[in-house]
């Protein structure tokens, strides 16, 4: 499974970058989100993955027993997800605002100020 996940992560990164190279702002944003997902999965994967053992201490125990999923990557991803939610929300709104001001979604037309180079 790890191998398939590795390939999946690669695909997420690849598709994310491909989307980011497009001219549409919306696609750019979607690409960033995809890469973000890829990064999260990557972190998840490099912690030891195993099936069905959440890092929650069972009722009658005081510590995790046997095999359990590594809790640290999970905590990291949680933080990363939340942060990227904030960033994404902001970026989405920025996109909207830029569209309102410039009237276009085409990134190639957003360089009116780069004349003085």
């Amino acid at each position: 499974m790890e191998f398939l996940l590795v390939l999946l992560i690669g695909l997420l990164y690849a598709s994310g970058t491909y989307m980011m190279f497009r001219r549409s702002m919306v696609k750019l944003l979607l690409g960033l989100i995809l890469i973000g997902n890829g990064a999260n999965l990557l972190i998840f994967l490099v912690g030891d993955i195993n099936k069905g053992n959440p890092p929650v201490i069972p009722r009658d125990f005081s510590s995790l027993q046997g095999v359990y999923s590594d809790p640290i990557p999970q905590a990291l991803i949680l933080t990363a997800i939340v942060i990227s939610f904030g960033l994404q929300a902001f970026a989405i709104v920025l996109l909207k605002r830029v569209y309102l001001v410039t009237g276009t979604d085409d990134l190639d037309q957003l360089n009116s100020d780069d004349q003085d180079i």
Partner: protein
Amino acid sequence: MLIAVLSGILFALLFLFFRLQNGWLRFIPAFLPLSLLIYFSTWLPEVTGGQEILFKYSWIPAMGVNLDFKLDGLAMLFSLMITGIGTLVYIYAAAYLSDRSQIHKFFSCLSLFMAAMLGLVLSDNLLVLFIFWELTSISSFFLIGWNTKEEASRKSAVLALAITGGGGFLLLAGVLLMGNVGSSYSIQALTAASATLKQHSSYVLMLCFVFAGAFTKSAMFPFHFWLPGAMKAPTPVSAYLHSATMVKAGIYLLFRLSPVLGGEPLWNYTLMIVGGFTLLYASFQSLFRTDLKGVLAYSTIAALGLIVLLIGIGTTESFLAAAVFILVHALYKAALFLCTGIIDHAVHSRDLTKLSGLRKIMMPVAIAAGIAALSSAGIPFTFGFIGKDLIYEATMHTGMLAIQLTGLVLVANILLSYAGYIAGFRPFAGALPEAYADTAKPGFLLWGPPALLAVLSLFFGFFPALSSPLVNAVVSAAGGNPALPDLKLWHGFNLILLLSGVTVVGGFLLYLLRKPADSQLQFMDRFEPFSARSFFLGLAEGIKKISHYFTCKLQNGYLRNYMITIISFLLILLCWKLVKLIPNSIDFSTMTPVSMYDVVILVMMVSAIFVLMFTSSRLTSIISLSIVGYSICLLFVFYGAPDLAMTQFTIDTLTAVLFMLILLKLPPFLTLTNKAIKIRDAIISAIFGGVISMIAFLVLQEPTHKTISRFYADNAYSLAKGKNVVNVILVDFRGSDTLIEITVLTIAALGVYSMLKLKISSSEKE
């Protein structure tokens, strides 16, 4: 001593804030150089007695930068010139400058400049020397650009700064290289380590750097062209900078470093060639100038070339000649400049084709200029004669090169004599044009300084021996034989006298035969495209064009190009490393077995990703994104991360909602790029994905000891009283992260609010 050096800077600050508009107050600043002159003169006996007076002040010991000042013959010569001519220039400037409201600033700059020059010549620490070196560049920048309203003036200032400052940076490299090799910045120490330096593999580099600094500063060919441009400065500035100070800094440096780096053929020949060529070139050029200051500028360049040539010869005689000529040149050139200024001031013209007969309205000036011209030509009983004598003496004792050098110097000297005559006689000879008839006579304070200089030229011409102790001290400082006889006016009839005579007469004949004319100037202008000036300006223009092109290429305003560059850069670096790491075989045995539901989720996810990439409907793309998110969420569930799954799910839903709200009024996707670009992008993206996959795979293969997560697993309940270990990490073990994370959310919310609510209309002022 420190005070003496820094007093200029202090006064510079002082003058900035005290206006000196009222009458005689203008002359107060002149007391600064005067008192300094007196101060330095008091050390004369010790210095001429062969002593070196040292003053040490600690400044930045961490970098070996100490304010060590050394007063030896060389420093003394320059100090006296700087302060002496300085005094006269101060007085002159006070009378000369018409814009009284700005005069305090002028003196401020001038004082700064003087202090910088003093510091330069007195420093025993090469780095400190360099600091003052740059200060002279900067302060001269302000002085040259004094007439700020004229574009030409501003341009000359920038050009002068660019050349001298640029050379300065190279000099800095040289200084640091010398410091590194000689493990000290003290000139004394470096002199002692001279052999080490010369044998070091980077000796050539050192020379290159030092020469770059000295040649740019002293306007050697091909860096000479800033100097004529710098004539845009007010005349007192020209007089000061180009006779005794600024341009002599390079000379000083070469002189100073002669015992450190000199004596090697490379040093000598480079200096001789560059100096000689500059001498010839500039003296020839001066033939064609019609602007008084232009003539002086080129003759100055030529004189500098001559001195460099002399230093390059590197014998005691040549050092002696150089030392004397420096003084000679300072005296007559300053006088000529000042006279030029008076003429300019009085009749508002410096055009040699028009000026004549001015002796009738300014006799004292005419006399002063005349004497200066004679000294320049080397007529007996002027100091110039002694100088010429010594020069021929020096060139004739250079062994193999004696004839060539002497010939060269002879030709150049004739031309220079001509230049001197032109500048000193021409404006005063002949009939006075009508237009100038009722010009007011210049005041004493204007003609006094040049007259004094002329008198000094004569004085030393009559009594050359008086200058001997100082000059000898200079020679010994430069590493020459200190035991020299006194200077004498009369050596008897010999070849040298003959040469001197030829020079004087030749120059005079030339003066009689040639009339400066605009046509000659225009003739010379035809060669302008081949000149060094054009070359450098063209180079600068070319660099600008290249930079413009280059910047436009890079910073082209297309975000996706930027990202392609960034990703490609990353990929190049990563691939370079990863090539060595490609595994031979893959071991699947240690991996988690693949289940049916895993495969289904993966298939769905992969398809959704492709739909997302290629759909033309925005809504479909958002739904696909949601499916990708939900699939990840399921993966999280399968692999034991319920917290993650919950969060991922909520966030994905919210993101979809956000997108919905925002996308409502956006236009649909357009197919904007062509197929070739898409393929290129796809290839780059695929490589990126592959590289990340490979890294992830390699990392999975590495054994890891997860002691920290073991600690959490064991202690989450006992120490932090929580059973959901992830949550315990989030609120306790790594709680700070969470605190910051909600701060991020807060900021994002503020941002969203402000961005949508705050709309500054375009008419509103910022």
